[in-house]
């Protein structure tokens, strides 16, 4: 019986093919039941997202199972099996565990560290559970995969640093201000991207929101959409004095916020920092404003640079995550191995304990005048002998299971100690 995963992902399959193969939930249920009915797999689970279609399972012959499953899947989706087959990868046993952990930890994702994948794996698991195609092997595997995914997220910064311009702006704001709750935001211009950045700030608790736009009507609309207030475009400088974060995204050909203006504004702010997020091209804020004390002025190129640095940081963290995942795989396999030999160890102990208790009883029956001390000594002596005898075979069993050679040892132990059928 082997654990396997077979499928294709963004790494080797073009998006057109992945699109064609992606299965929606209802169909997935049907498919799972059909596959289970063929009997080639004992347990199975299908993970279908826009970046991967993978089948996890337990089967006697993984190669055959893979062929059956994907033939079925291709028939469902009207794709020729011949075009899919050469793109499929298969991992068996240890490698399958490793793959499952990497997927759950978002290390195999197109955008490393993206958070959705863990939820998608959880959904796939729940779906397969609903169809009763999950057995003990997949259950243990995926419960552990979820834990590993969570651990990687919390112990590395793989998912920490923003990889979109608008989120990078939010993160920068968090390096200037201690939390964004109650920070006033001014949105100048009514572009989509500016709105998006403003929304991210609102989600982090920024309040209140002011909107300035050349057309008063548009400013009011946007203000309503963001639960903010419109301010007259002509009074931009007044508005600047009272806010912490400014997002500019107008189509103006010349800067609308000049260095001199910012300097005047800063004068009355008692050094309260002012953060400009200038996503307009051409720029809305004079770049030289950045040289003023407590003024931080990021244009779109600066933000992109931060995003690139963030990506590099993510990749660095991904290396640490890989090490962590490998360690988790080793731990998991070691435990799995133990699980295999534990029943034998238990029955071995029971068998010897049974013998010991019986013999002690007989011995004590022959010693009617034995004091409590003598009884205790006999109990102690017999227990010690049993433990000493058990020590070597038990450690050998554990060892062999970790080395992957437990089967012959299990049989040997059963035979030698007369433990009956496994």
């Amino acid at each position, binding site marked *: 019986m082997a654990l396997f995963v077979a499928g294709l992902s963004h790494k080797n399959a073009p998006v057109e093919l992945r699109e064609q193969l992606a299965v929606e939930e209802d169909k997935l249920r049907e498919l799972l039941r059909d596959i289970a009915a063929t009997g080639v797999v004992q347990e199975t689970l299908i993970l279908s997202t826009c970046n991967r279609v993978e089948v996890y399972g337990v089967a006697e012959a993984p190669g055959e199972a893979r062929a059956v499953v994907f033939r079925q899947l291709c028939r469902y989706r009207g794709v020729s099996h011949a075009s899919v087959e050469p793109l499929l990868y298969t991992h068996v046993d240890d490698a399958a565990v490793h793959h499952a952990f990497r997927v759950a930890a978002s290390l195999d994702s197109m955008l490393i560290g993206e958070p959705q994948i863990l939820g998608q794996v959880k959904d796939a698991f729940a779906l397969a559970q609903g169809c009763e195609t999950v057995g003990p092997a997949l259950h243990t595997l995926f419960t552990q995969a979820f834990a590993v995914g969570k651990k990687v997220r919390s112990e590395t910064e793989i998912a920490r640093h923003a990889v979109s311009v608008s989120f990078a702006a939010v993160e920068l704001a968090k390096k200037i201000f201690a939390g964004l709750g109650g920070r006033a935001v001014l949105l100048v211009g009514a572009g989509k991207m500016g709105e998006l950045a403003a929304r991210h700030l609102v989600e982090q608790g920024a309040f209140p929101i002011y909107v300035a736009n050349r057309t008063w009507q548009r400013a009011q609309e946007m203000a309503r959409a963001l639960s903010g207030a419109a301010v007259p475009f002509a009074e931009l400088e007044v508005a600047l004095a009272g806010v912490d974060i400014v997002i500019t995204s107008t189509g103006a050909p010349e800067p609308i916020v000049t260095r001199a203006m910012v300097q005047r504004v800063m004068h009355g702010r008692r*050094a309260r920092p002012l953060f400009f997020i200038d996503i307009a091209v051409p720029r809305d804020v004079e770049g030289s404003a950045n040289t003023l004390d407590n003024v931080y002025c990021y244009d779109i190129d*600066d933000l992109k640079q931060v995003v690139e640095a963030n990506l590099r940081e993510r990749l660095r963290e991904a290396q640490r995550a890989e090490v962590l995942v490998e360690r988790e795989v080793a731990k998991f396999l070691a435990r799995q191995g133990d699980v295999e030999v534990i029943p034998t160890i238990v029955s071995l102990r029971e068998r010897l304990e049974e013998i010991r208790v019986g013999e002690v009883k007989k011995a004590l029956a022959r010693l009617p005048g034995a004091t409590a001390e003598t009884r205790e000594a006999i109990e102690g002596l017999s227990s010690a002998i049993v433990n000493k005898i058990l020590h070597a075979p038990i450690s050998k069993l554990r060892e062999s299971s970790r080395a992957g050679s437990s089967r012959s040892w299990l049989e040997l132990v059963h035979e030698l100690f007369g433990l009956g059928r496994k």
Partner: protein
Amino acid sequence: MYPTLLDLAIFGYIAATGLSLAYLVQREEWLHRLASVATIAGWVLHTVALLGVAFRLGRPPLGSLSEAVSVAVWVAVLWALWAERQYGVKVLGAFVLPVVLVFGINSATTRPLAIPGIERALGSAWIWVHIGLVLLGIAAFVLNFAGALMYVLQERQLKAKRPGKLYYRLPDLETLDRLTYRTLALGFPFLTTGLILGVLWAGRAWGSVFAYDPLALLSFVAWTIYAGTLAGRAAAGWHGRRAAYFAIIGFAALVLTLGAGMFLPGRHGS
């Protein structure tokens, strides 16, 4: 026995410094945990060592400048442990501990256990209060310096718009500014009161306040810088970079002051 304990404490601080710096570069939680353990272990050993000295001498371990600096280090470590939790600045150790270490090693290696005539000079209870208050102030300024240094580094990263490793590790500017301000507000009253007591006592005992004592002179310079920063903060709304630069300059003056006390001839004993 007691010097050995102090050596062990220093060894703990050395380990803690190394681990904290490693944590700054490599974000591994276990490094931070180990650094905390080493810091606390060093501090506990330090406590026992100081108590040992106090019992043996039958007086507070503040009889010489190096003893006093040792106690200042002890207070600084305690405050750093507190501030780290209070402000959630996990990298604080990397900025406080190196300073602590330099002071600690200095005070442990230049250890005159008895200055001639010290007993007579220490007869007045006021002198103990003077020393105690000043070193509480110094301990606060160690944190003040660390906060300011972190602020300057983070501010640079943000202005340059090229996030380096430190950008990801250091906390936000506002938290750092608050840490710097609070430690200044905490240390300044201690330093001021301590210095006033010293001046009063010196006037009575030495005749003249700053007579031939480089430490006393330099301490006045340091105090002026800190007073100016505090005034600027409170009245003129200085924040951020300017306040941070002044904190760093103030601390440099403080270090010079202590160095002068330790290495130049004067009345604070060398």
